[in-house]
């Protein structure tokens, strides 16, 4: 039976093969690195794609690389060793910054890049929704958060704590 270590290794292989320029875990799985365990059924991965002259961002090279290794895409997820992984190209400056600032964590001797907790809070609030707001509060209450950095990130990207944020 595979372990999560092997899923993370696939992400690193994608980067070393140049299919993606960089990546960072986001969502609930990323929160796990900084806060107490909560349930999730998929793994969100933000990616920076290699520069291209195509006008439309395409995940086709990622899916083709994965398919060649036996990991099939089903709608917006790819099953990697049975774990549904959703790849999201950096869709705004906050995501780009979160990937650039990602921290290298060790998971069973495999490095995995994870968005910093301050960016995870800002991303959750920017995306909105009750579950994400709850996640942001959970991080704020239990994780080791640099409040000045968080305030600065939120102000720079126009993210608010309000319900409409």
């Amino acid at each position, binding site marked *: *039976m*595979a*372990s*999560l270590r092997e*899923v993370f290794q696939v992400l690193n292989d994608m980067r070393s093969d140049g299919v993606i320029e960089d990546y960072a875990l986001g969502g609930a799985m990323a929160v*796990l*690195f*900084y*806060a*107490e*365990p*909560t*349930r*999730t*059924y*998929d793994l969100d991965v933000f990616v920076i794609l290699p520069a291209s002259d195509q006008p439309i961002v395409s995940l086709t090279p990622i899916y083709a690389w994965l398919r060649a290794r036996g990991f099939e895409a*089903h*709608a917006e*997820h790819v*099953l990697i*060793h*049975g*774990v*549904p992984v959703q790849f999201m190209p950096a869709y705004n400056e906050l995501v780009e910054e979160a990937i650039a600032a990602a921290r290298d*964590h060790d*998971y*069973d001797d495999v490095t995995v890049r994870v968005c910093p907790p301050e960016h995870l809070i800002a991303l959750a609030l920017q995306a909105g929704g009750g579950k994400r707001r709850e996640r942001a509060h959970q991080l704020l209450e*239990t*994780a080791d958060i640099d409040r000045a950095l968080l305030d600065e990130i939120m102000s720079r990207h126009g993210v608010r704590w309000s319900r409409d944020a």
Partner: protein
Amino acid sequence: MRDRARSTGDRIAGLFHAKAEWHRRQVRLPIKEKVRILLELQRQDHPLLKRHRTLEWWEEPWPIEP
């Protein structure tokens, strides 16, 4: 009467303190242990979620080890 109220208040404060400490301990767990808990939560919650709504195809417990 006042002593009784104070002792109840102290007991409740103690319970909240213990709960907060439990949450702090959960945060400090090694990541692999957190993943083990996540996999267990997935298995426990899946039948309950399934009873309440139609799940997406990918909302299944992960067939992996931590």
